[in-house]
């Protein structure tokens, strides 16, 4: 089949971007969306033009590198599917497809469809861990954990950090991302000693990075390739309020020397 693509092209962070129109010919329904872009890129290289830059790596839907707005929808039309796992059989011959990078103030565009998601790493840096050094651990079976808690923790821990939740949110909020980590660790006994501090610092960091606030639209959970639930956000808010009552607020990472 044949598609008409309108792709966001921007040569650098400070350059002005615009849509460019390309024809994608001989698209097989068995191609993945990224393989379709590969083939467009090969034809651009053959014409001596710069190929479309996009982030991708595992192409199995788990590394979280890829992600783009496809016809205005983060990761495109198939639910619970990252861009690399989306196949062209979900498009029809002659279809017009608009492709844009993640749009969010906290994700500046680097080039074309590549954005800088370093803010997500800094949110994890501000508390998304258990402070245990190598060698400190006791026997793994010394603390039994309710299967249901372990399963719920795993549901939240499945986050791949792609940023689709931010891109889909009208407020550009990273609440689902942050809440998923707070929930994962907050449900486990290993996460308890730092639970207050984690919630306080991670939320403060999210604000400092310029992500918007959550108004519970729920767009994030629709876009999430791992279908993480906004129930986690309720949990984050619960922990955050609890932490505010129990301890002094923490400064974000970027404000520390």
């Amino acid at each position, binding site marked *: 089949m044949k598609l008409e693509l309108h792709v966001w092209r921007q040569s650098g962070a400070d350059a002005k971007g615009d849509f460019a129109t390309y024809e994608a010919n001989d698209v097989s329904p068995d191609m993945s969306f990224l393989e379709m872009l*590969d083939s467009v890129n090969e034809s651009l290289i053959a014409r001596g033009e710069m190929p479309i830059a996009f982030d991708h790596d595992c192409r199995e839907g788990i590394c979280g590198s890829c992600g783009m707005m496809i016809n205005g929808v983060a990761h495109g039309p198939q639910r619970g599917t990252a861009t690399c796992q989306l196949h062209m059989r979900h498009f029809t011959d002659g279809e017009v497809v608009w492709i844009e990078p993640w749009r969010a103030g906290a994700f500046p565009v680097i080039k074309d469809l590549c954005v800088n998601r370093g803010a997500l790493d800094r949110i*994890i840096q501000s508390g998304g861990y258990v402070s245990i050094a190598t060698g400190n651990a006791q026997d*793994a079976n010394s603390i*039994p954990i309710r*299967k249901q808690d372990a399963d719920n923790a795993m549901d939240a821990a499945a986050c791949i950090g792609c940023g689709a939740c931010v891109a889909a949110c009208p407020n550009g909020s990273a609440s689902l991302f942050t809440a998923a980590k707070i929930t994962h660790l907050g449900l486990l006994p290993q996460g308890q000693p730092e639970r207050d501090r984690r919630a306080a610092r991670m939320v403060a960091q999210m604000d400092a990075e310029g992500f918007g606030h959550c108004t519970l639209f729920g767009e994030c959970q629709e876009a999430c390739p791992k279908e993480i639930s906004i129930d986690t956000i309720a949990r984050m808010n619960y922990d955050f309020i609890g932490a505010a009552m129990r301890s002094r607020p923490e400064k974000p990472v970027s404000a520390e020397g």
Partner: protein
Amino acid sequence: MKLDARVPEGPIQEKWDTRKFDMKLVNPANKRKHTVIVVGTGLAGGAAAASLSELGYQVKSFCFQDSPRRAHSIAAQGGINAAKNYPNDGDSVYRLFYDTVKGGDFRSRESNVYRLAQVSVNIIDQATAQGVPFAREYGGLLANRSFGGAQVSRTFYARGQTGQQLLLGAYQAMEKEIDKGGITMYPRHEMLDLIVVDGHARGIVTRNMVTGAVEPHLADAVVLASGGYGNVFFLSTNAKGSNCTAIWRAYKRGAAFANPCYTQIHPTCIPESGEHQSKLTLMSESLRNDGRVWVPKAKGDTRKPNEIPENERDYYLERKYPSFGNLSPRDIASRGAKEVCDEGRGVGPGGRGVYLDFADAIKRLGKEKIAERYGNLFEMYERITDENPYEVPMRIYPAVHYTMGGLWVDYNLMSTIPGLHVAGEANFSDHGANRLGASALMQGLSDGYFVIPLTIGDYLATAKPKPLAADHPEVLATVKQVEERTAKLLGIKGKRSPDSFHRELGRLMWEYCGMARSREGLEHALKRIPELRAEFWRDLTVPGTGEELNQSLEKAGRVADFMELAELMCLDALHREESCGGHFRVEHQTPDGEALRNDAEFAYVAAWEWAGEDKAPVLNKEPLEFEYVHLATRSYK
């Protein structure tokens, strides 16, 4: 070149303790005066960076992805082995050691494997303490399963995402250290060369993939944890960015490359769907527990699978290996699929596929039970192929999955360049000629959490590296060489893209250095690869400049190195006149087609040494002795 494995004396059970006691220590106050570079943030690199920083070293960590959380360890599905013996089924450190040496077809170093089995138990403790949500039983304790044909249940898992959860554990430990200031993180940086001063590894040269800036980074020791080189085949289950450049550059600076021909071809991957294919996707091996592998008995049978009657199907694994059947080891199952497809009995597009049929299992256990066991895998399969495996048999075909070869390391995981340590898939040490399922995660984390942090200290305390000036002639020369190479790639201005060369190289390697290798085929490849390489340097085109984010330039540099590594792999495969593990030479097989090892002549590690451009590499041998696990022929009949 002298290969000294520096294995401690004494009984195998005591070697690691002996080494730990004999190692020189760095005073806690002096640790922060040392800088250690870690390249790669997968299980090995992430764990090493975090642990070194916890000890007090200044760590500089590099990855080519936009975040350290994305390294390809994240894609591992099945699980991680550990000799915990929680199920009380007779497992022990010694049994895990024994199984791993035997599974590696007697081509690994016993002492390293024993240590791996020993520290396996600490890995599970560490990961659990970090909050890794391993699967649990209703009683609240950790669940185990049997994996990859093992006779005991020693595999720990987190759904089908064990690699992801273990990697996030290591990543979070890194972020904790970044927050504290112990690790400086350099994402979107690619290592393009190693800086060697007075014979010691003293730093790396990187390219900032956003700005294009080429910069030196200096240190007192360097750890390479840059993963495997399966992408030399173009199509593999590796991530698109996985490449050999870091280890290949180190090889050309003097690090020996061990057993490059040992590659693992995984039997259960989704077959190619056409010319556009950019990578292959693995379907967990656990599917073979319930699926039956078959092809039509007749050549060129184009009927739909459900229309082929039972007596016209060939369940070839069950027929040839009645006792292991569909659970035969990876190398045997892969070769079986290739054989039937070569006979013209393959199924699906291009005839490169075999059926993995769940109809009997569904009849026996019910659809619900099968959905519970494999639901997410069936979903993933349907997403990619648009076929429903509950109704139509899956189609599978082998694909390159892991490389057992890598840079040669001694017992302390140090390469033949003092100060250059190598961890995880990038080194050669623990899996011999074939890796067992659920052992890769174990090795990466063992190296990263428990070995490297200690052996680096021993090196620093012994070698006492002196401060190095940023304008040392070796530093400047290495930077200059990287810049010249980049300029050369950009300056060819030919007609063919990096991918088109990569695809062609991959096809050549798959055909002649893949599942079955012959003298004739390898000699053909060794003639063809230099021709292709010459064409590459004559006709490559890379649009754009070096001073920007340029993904074609990144690919071109990686393909250039794959072109050289491919030749070394073929050379190694040609010289190894035996069949062992993932290396099958058609000339060396038993009358009924089984691999025939030659222990008298080839029980050694082949460590290749770079001799210069256009010169044949030099073969060095580390003899392997099997004191504890006695040499025996594997039999799965």
